[in-house]
């Protein structure tokens, strides 16, 4: 089927009748077709890329062991995650400095983290400590983005902490809650 008869015209005349030699070739076309079909099927059904995971370590909630280290407010940056993919940040203690509204993204949060960590390092000689406080109006993506930006900047001292009513008021005032 796959081979065309390319031999010349048939021999004419007499001659010895020879038994026809059967070709040992097997037509593999159909087999190859099938093999590729199966390959395609298996490629499409397998998960080629394993999902990636970001590690998250939460502070221990155990009330009995209270071994929290005090961190100086001067080198603490607090991020309040509000609604509409916006966040607020302030350096230092709550209420002392007015929070600034910012967005996620490389010109927003990342730039802020870069600048502030440099400032804090110059002023105190220590790494900046970042506290992420997601409000109830923030979504999961915001939290992951904030953690991710910290990974990009290379900040390892951070924590996710519950938001306080006082801070919710701040978000409400700026229309992010």
């Amino acid at each position, binding site marked *: 089927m*796959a*081979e*065309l008869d*390319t031999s010349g015209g048939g021999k004419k005349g007499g001659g010895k009748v020879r038994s026809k030699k059967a070709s040992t*070739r097997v*037509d*593999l*076309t159909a*087999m*190859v077709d099938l*093999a*590729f079909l*199966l*390959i395609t099927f*298996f*490629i499409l*059904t*397998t*998960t080629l*890329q*394993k*999902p*990636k*995971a*970001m*590690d*998250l*370590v*939460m*502070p*221990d*909630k*155990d009330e009995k062991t209270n071994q929290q280290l005090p961190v100086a407010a001067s080198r603490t940056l607090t991020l309040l*995650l509000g609604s509409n993919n916006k966040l607020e940040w302030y350096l230092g203690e709550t209420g002392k400095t007015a929070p600034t509204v910012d967005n996620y993204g*490389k010109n927003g949060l990342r730039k802020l983290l870069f600048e502030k960590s440099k400032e804090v390092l110059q002023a105190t000689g220590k790494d900046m400590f970042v506290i992420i406080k*997601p*409000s*109830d*109006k*923030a*979504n*999961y*993506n*915001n*939290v*992951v*983005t904030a*953690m*991710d930006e910290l*990974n*990009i900047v290379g900040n390892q001292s951070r924590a996710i902490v519950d938001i306080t009513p006082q801070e919710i008021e701040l978000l409400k005032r700026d229309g992010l809650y």
Partner: protein
Amino acid sequence: MPRVKVARKSTAIDMTAMCDVAFLLLTFFILSAKPKTEDPVKAEVPASIAKEAIPETDYLIITVGGGKAFFTIEGDDVRRETIKAMADQYKIPFTPAQINTFVHTESFGVPLSTLPQFLSLNPAERIAYKQPGIPVDTTENNDLWKWVNQARKANALLHNKDPRVAIKGDSREEYPTIKKIIMTLQKQHVDKFSLITSLKTVSK
């Protein structure tokens, strides 16, 4: 002038090598295949730069989407051990057939009270069944807490290892839902866990 005769060549191509390659690839894909498991809920995971892949074995996944939580236990042996432990602990009589069905169900999202009925459905009905999600709340003894607890015990018993707990959340999911799950995990001192994300390239 004599006509130049073009030699007629055979149009047959030797397929042997191609066939060999095709079957080699086929064997590779069959052996490395792990069937794609359909999540019961659509979860579009957020992107991050994290490059670490979740381990091949010894992990639990909590899928969150649309306010519902679903639980995935990796490994048939761990699933079997977990359901047996759950049956013992909370006095739920499972038939051997129901246990077998559970062992072959990758992820599920039904409350403990309706799990036996869910497992008795036939496969087509089970797919069509709208799973309400595993109840999660802020109290000590919610269903998810029980499942994670027993699955961790089963995994430790069988593989001598505490499984890694991963959260696969939809990026539009509201934070309070995620917070409840994190609190549930922290109630049993799982303070370190993974968030499943898709890979994002850093834009500089």
